[in-house]
């Protein structure tokens, strides 16, 4: 079947949309999904740029079968190149370019705020319809900030307790960081900082608890916080699903997030575990190309359709 000819009947997105793919845990398929989603989007005649934001641990280029990129992210970061479009590395796919982090120094992960802000500004100069950020594992400020920068925030989990646990930690950390950055009132900022410490003495263990506490002290501030909470939304993909019941974990995470955190989740679907996927990894070819008729591809198509349907979460 020619996947490129499949009718996705997608909703048109505004010019230049940034999608960030994160999830807190390593080895859950973020890079693999980023590269395959990028290829899929490029087939929709969209100009796509993928940026390897797994700072210090970059390997998106390998996933796309690109050898030794001429320029990398550090060239931009250390002012060796001014125009981010000069960093774009062609891939084997028309409309798809890469900004790689290959062989960048490991210290790049600890970039100071000024460099981070500059990088974010430079991303906006990139000529593309879609910019996909492949984030690294963990909850470092840099990872969280690039996640929050995105119009669409995508979280990948696998149906394993460790993955779900890390995803919750990532969601909570990103959410608090967003709130803290957008809250001018000192005592609310202080409460947010206390909430970021899970062992805080006020017993604030979730964004919902935080909101209750703020609303108790000041209904107006509580209302403001509530609006910010309601505007925060992320999309969820469950990867490496081996049984139908494992696919249900996406719905469960959605329900729990909405009830416990008070955060809206757009569950976009799951990708089944498929032998052809790891075979494609070995070949350094996206499974979309290597196994176009696999069940993984069918599900990826559903996921992408759902991602394109929903409005940006920024």
């Amino acid at each position, binding site marked *: 079947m020619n996947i490129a000819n499949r009718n996705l009947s997608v909703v048109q997105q505004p010019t230049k949309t940034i999608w960030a793919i994160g999830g807190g845990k390593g080895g859950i398929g973020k890079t693999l999904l980023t590269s395959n989603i990028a290829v899929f989007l490029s087939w929709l005649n969209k100009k796509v740029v993928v940026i390897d934001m797994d700072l210090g641990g970059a390997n998106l280029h390998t996933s796309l079968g690109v050898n030794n990129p001429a320029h990398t992210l550090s060239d931009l970061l250390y002012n060796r190149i001014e125009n981010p479009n000069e960093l774009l590395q062609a891939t084997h796919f028309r409309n798809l370019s890469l900004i790689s982090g290959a062989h960048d120094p490991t210290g790049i992960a600890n970039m100071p705020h000024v460099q981070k802000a500059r990088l974010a500004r430079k991303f906006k100069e990139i000529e593309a319809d879609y910019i996909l950020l492949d984030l690294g594992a963990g909850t470092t400020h840099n990872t969280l900030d690039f996640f929050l920068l995105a119009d669409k925030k995508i979280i990948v989990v696998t*149906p394993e307790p460790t993955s779900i*646990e890390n995803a*919750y930690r990532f969601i909570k950390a990103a959410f608090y960081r967003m709130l803290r950055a957008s809250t001018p009132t000192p005592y609310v900022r202080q409460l947010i900082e206390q909430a970021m410490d899970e062992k805080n003495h006020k017993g604030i263990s979730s964004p919902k608890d935080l*909101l*209750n506490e703020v609303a108790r002290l000041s209904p107006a501030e509580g209302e403001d916080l509530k609006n910010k909470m309601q505007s925060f939304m992320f999309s969820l993909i469950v990867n490496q699903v081996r049984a139908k019941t494992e696919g249900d974990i996406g*719905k469960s995470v959605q*329900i*729990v997030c909405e009830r*416990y955190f*008070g955060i809206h989740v757009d569950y976009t679907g799951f990708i089944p575990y498929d032998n052809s996927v790891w075979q494609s990894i070995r070949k350094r070819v996206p499974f979309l190309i290597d196994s176009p008729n696999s069940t993984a591809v069918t599900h990826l198509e559903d996921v992408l359709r759902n991602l394109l349907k929903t409005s940006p979460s920024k």
Partner: protein
Amino acid sequence: MSKTNSEESYYQLLRVSPKASVSEITSAYLSAKNAFSKDSIATYSLMAAEDTTDILSQLETAYMTLTNPDKRRDYDKRLNSAEIVNLEVARPNPESQISQETNKKAQQTPVFESAPVVANSNLSESHSFDKDTGSDAPLNHLNTGEFNLSQIRESKGLTLTDVSRITKIPVKYLKALEERDKANLPAKVYIQGFLKNLAQLYRLDPKTAVSQYLMQLEQTSGPTSP
């Protein structure tokens, strides 16, 4: 702090509309039950066993109530009555009292937990207004022979601000709708949506309300919006 919320209605608990069918309720119940089950990996790192047990118990009660027609009818009545009490407090001077009531509620109950969860959360409020005025008010309200949105609203004792707060329709559009001010009305599709919301609030038949309003709007002269 508590992870459960006793202030939530059964509909909010199950994340369904108050108009949800039994099949929708059952589906929502099964998903929620699965999410909060003892061996669920979606909750193990977040919630203590007593919290999930509490939620499961609430889900069970909600499900048993809403899937039994008699129990659901009784529950809806009680739910509406409780909301009437809240509204009566706000009624004497709606413009000033409502904001006070909102503040008071915000102080008494957590803001998030009192926030609407279900898509059609305004419906329960519309039910409560209905109790005051009798159901299914005639379209040619007060025998004027025309569909007069302003008169219908006033007969319910509501201000434009009240209606805007409940339906989330901006006051400027409510005003334009009532005055049939074509220059300030949005596109037809929005008008239809707004009218359906208003029909729910005023306990009118949405289809008839939309068709009658649009018919009268067509007969109204004046410039249309660009």
